[in-house]
């Protein structure tokens, strides 16, 4: 791993987190609207929505660090015809602009709610395309450890897993700030928050299941794909074996154990403090686990040939 790969790690992790978080926020918003009405939904998600653009902005800044010749960036003509990195850059730019637009419209309540909802969902789709494009960047036929469906699948799982937990964190922070301002509103919000957190806990457990299903299939597949793939596999189980185990443990504890406790905790009233602690620690653990997972992704690829 060099500076460049750390920049890419930051870009992909934060970019996926931002895209996942927006999707989760839109789902939470529809749910809250259906369950408690538009006003409660706005109370719940308007604050957390502000996290998407700064996170995506950071991601894009990190992606610039990956380049060595910034002077040429503005002269660059994107090679959209065949280069996924080009498509990724363009779609990321569109995503951050669309997300900023949606956040602004939602903040200032410009236009009807219906129109804003449509813009929000369109932005979600752009975010999903961005995650897909990020995956395709690594689908190089000369990089067998990357050139498998596991790459985009894992990117989507990371995006959703970090998305649900980051949104959980933001919802809890948002709730705490409402509570200090207006206890009455907070009371209404709490019930809603508890049911949303239950949904988030279940989603995290399901995503963890997918992640733990993909990994062994992926590793078994690598064993059959020639010398370079085998070398990658040996790095994963050998030199980086401990890191892999710690990474899995982090995600398991965060998205498995803590999410289970969170589900139970959110099911009964009066345990808000513990609920918040569970949300924060689950997010931190899963973020650490996913960063390590992405580190391994960049550390263990072996190119075919010389």
């Amino acid at each position, binding site marked *: 791993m060099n500076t*460049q790969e750390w920049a890419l790690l930051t870009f992909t992790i934060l970019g996926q987190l931002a895209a996942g978080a927006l999707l989760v926020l839109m789902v939470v918003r529809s749910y809250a609207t259906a369950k408690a009405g538009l006003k409660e939904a706005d109370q719940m998600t308007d604050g957390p929505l502000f996290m998407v653009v700064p996170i995506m902005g950071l991601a894009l800044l990190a992606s610039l660090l*990956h*380049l*060595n*010749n*910034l002077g*040429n*960036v503005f*002269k*660059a*003509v*994107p*090679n959209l015809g*065949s*280069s*996924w*990195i*080009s498509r990724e*850059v363009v779609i990321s730019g569109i995503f951050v602009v669309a997300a900023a637009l949606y956040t602004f419209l939602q903040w200032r309540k410009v236009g009807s709610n219906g129109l804003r909802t449509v813009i929000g969902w369109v932005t979600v789709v752009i975010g999903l395309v961005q995650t897909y494009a990020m995956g395709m*960047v690594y689908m*190089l*036929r*000369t*990089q067998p450890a990357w050139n498998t469906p596991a790459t985009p699948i894992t990117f989507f799982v990371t995006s959703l897993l970090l998305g649900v937990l980051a949104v959980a964190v933001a919802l809890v922070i948002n709730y705490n700030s409402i509570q200090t301002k207006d206890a009455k509103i907070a009371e209404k919000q709490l019930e809603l928050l508890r049911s949303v957190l239950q949904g988030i806990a279940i989603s995290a457990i399901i995503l963890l299941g997918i992640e733990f299903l993909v990994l062994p299939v992926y590793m078994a597949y690598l064993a059959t794909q*020639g*010398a370079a793939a085998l070398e990658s596999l040996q790095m994963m189980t050998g030199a980086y074996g401990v890191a892999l185990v710690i990474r899995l443990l982090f995600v398991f504890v965060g998205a498995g154990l803590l999410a289970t406790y969170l589900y139970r905790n959110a099911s009964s009233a009066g345990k808000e403090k513990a609920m918040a602690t569970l949300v924060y620690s689950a997010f931190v653990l899963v973020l650490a686990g996913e960063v390590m997972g992405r580190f391994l992704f960049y550390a263990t*690829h072996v*190119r*075919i*040939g*010389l």
Partner: protein
Amino acid sequence: MTKQLGFHFDASACTACKACAIACKDRSSLPVGINWRKVYEYGGGEWITDPNHKDLMSPSNVFVYSVSAACMHCEKPICTEVCPVSAITKGENGIVTIDKDKCIGCRYCEWACPYGAPQFNEDMRYMTKCDFCQDLQAKGLNPVCVDACPMRALEVGELDELQAKYGNLSAIEPLPTADLTAPSLVITPHKNAQASGQGTGHILSLEES
């Protein structure tokens, strides 16, 4: 005008003297760490129980040969495919070149190329690689690697003609299989040459290459 220039490499003649690599480095004043042409020594072998002394091991099937490799100016160059800013193009005579005024130094081509041809210049902050000495070729001269070889193991020419003369082999170990990028290369194999992807040996000159 030729359609696609290519190299012929005679692995049966190469002695791994590396004059080609040095001539290349000298002509283009390549800094430490950058070598557009490299010579890879590939070898292997095994130990077997000595038939005459059951308590001794003897080496068996020991082999070594070398492969001189630079940019293959491929017919399906993966570098041009993946470059986000179209800085790498396949031009006249099929020569693949990097436009340093367009390169943003993302090093994506470095990940993609199975020949390790595009190499990053830390001082200049852009990618560099073999340009087939196209300025010399325009004057009717050979690339310097070709003329430097004391064994005449390298030859440059129209790919079709080289194939007619020497056959269609374009990959032996440790080169990648030809289906990945369709290299403009014709190989006369060494007698011990192993098929790409099915080798039993490994690159022995790792520190040089």
